[in-house]
């Protein structure tokens, strides 16, 4: 079926996973392939070549007004031709965002990359001890050097902070450090749970009270320094009332809407987002429009969890039960985002 027969899609964003490999060992990692997902697609499929990626993205752009391509992994720079793939995407006219842990963003790597791209770089704490503990590797100093060089080169970057029980109350000082190094914004993601994170729930999930305190710190930092802060992973208002933090921007799961970020794995399989292990189709065999229009895709985005049926919060429609992929991965079936129950349980204990 051609896109013209299906109608032009509205999506402007695509996530492209270049590799499953990573040089960090974060316990909070949401990638299903890092944590033993319930539906791991076969890894013996051949990985897309650089030429295949170029062609695949061009075909997606015929079905939808694609504008942004986020290049991620695993750690994308572990793929040797990452810089060249990014170059291809920029040359094709896309705005490219590279999501990286920053360890391999060396001066030589930076020289290979085209100008005008944006980076999202993980900064989990303001001290070597805190960052390295969460990253599972001694990389803090390397990242700071790479961030400083990136700022010097004039590139734009935001830092990404994954909020866990270990670092939630260190967010003010982490924001300060990120801002001092030249970050254009501060992305605050509360930990998003996967199956692999189950053994570490008690050390990862902050209580609702701790999360509130953490967001208060973040709001104070924004008021003081004026660098924008945004929560990308949804924070359901039954855990924390997000309206209490007007200086922070809160995002919600786009649920297949215009802002959906369908994700292409390294072999060309298309998933609903980078949190989910559900395979919707194969872009080597099918068009993007066909896959987005298929029943499996529609079922994935359907409805809200039964636990949320009685919710009367004004943001119920936006929240929709939090991250549906997290529920699928953590429980093995669609329920309310596991973070809701666990953060509230932590608070009671």
């Amino acid at each position: 079926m051609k896109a013209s027969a299906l109608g032009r899609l509205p999506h402007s964003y695509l996530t492209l996973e270049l590799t499953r490999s990573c040089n960090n060992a974060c316990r909070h990692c949401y990638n299903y392939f890092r944590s033993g997902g319930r539906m791991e697609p076969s890894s013996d499929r051949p990985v897309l070549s650089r030429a295949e990626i170029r062609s695949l993205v061009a075909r997606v752009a015929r079905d939808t007004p694609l504008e942004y391509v986020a290049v991620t992994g695993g750690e994308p720079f572990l793929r040797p031709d990452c810089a060249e793939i990014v170059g291809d995407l920029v040359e094709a006219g896309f705005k490219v965002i590279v999501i990286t842990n920053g360890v391999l963003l060396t001066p030589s790597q930076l020289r290979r990359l085209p100008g005008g791209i944006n980076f999202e770089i993980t900064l989990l704490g303001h001290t070597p001890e805190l960052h390295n503990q969460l990253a599972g590797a001694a990389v803090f100093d390397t990242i700071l050097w790479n961030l400083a060089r990136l700022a010097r080169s004039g590139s734009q970057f935001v830092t990404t902070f994954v909020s866990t029980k270990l670092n939630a109350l260190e967010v003010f000082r982490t924001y300060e450090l990120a801002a001092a190094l030249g970050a254009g914004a501060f992305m605050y993601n509360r930990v998003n749970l996967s199956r692999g994170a189950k053994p570490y729930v008690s050390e990862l999930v902050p209580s609702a009270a701790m999360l509130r305190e953490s967001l208060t710190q973040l709001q104070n930092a924004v008021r003081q320094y004026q660098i924008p802060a945004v929560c990308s992973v949804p924070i359901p208002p039954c855990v924390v009332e997000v309206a209490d933090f007007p200086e922070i921007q809160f995002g919600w799961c786009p649920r297949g809407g215009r802002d959906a970020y369908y994700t292409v794995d390294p072999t060309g399989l298309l998933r609903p987002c980078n949190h989910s292990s559900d395979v919707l189709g194969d872009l080597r065999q099918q068009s993007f429009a066909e896959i987005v229009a298929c029943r499996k895709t529609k079922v994935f985005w359907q409805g809200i969890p039964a636990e949320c049926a009685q919710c009367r919060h004004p943001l119920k429609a936006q929240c929709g039960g939090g991250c549906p992929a997290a529920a699928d991965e953590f429980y093995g079936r669609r329920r309310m985002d596991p973070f809701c129950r666990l953060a509230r349980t932590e608070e009671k204990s």
Partner: protein
Amino acid sequence: MATKVKVTQQPVEELEQKYGVKAKDGTLDYAEGKYFLVVGRNRTELDPRHLVAPEPIVRLFETKATVKVIAAKDGIMVIVWNGKLKFVPILCYKPINVLAKRLDLEVANLILSKALEEKRITPEFHAYTTATMTPKSAS
């Protein structure tokens, strides 16, 4: 650059009709070849991933307020200002990208000096950053 902004008091719907702008339509709009993001009436509808796109934020220097530009068309900007949707005429403006939101050099240096004092960063790194980083103020 001084940017003069006069906030209109006309009802939103009236202005939407007059200028053909729908703040909620979630599309990109264009003004003088530069695009601005349409993010909707409710600030919670902002897609955080667009923070890495250019020009999501414009600072109005005259008021010292930080606002979000959500559309610009025919000399009118639609902004969220203190949580409220406003339509403002564009008298003089320039899109300010994310880079320009960097901290002032002096403030950045103070933070890095504190980090050095607390031994969170090395003297070599502190020397490099203070010598080479040139964070730009929005002006």
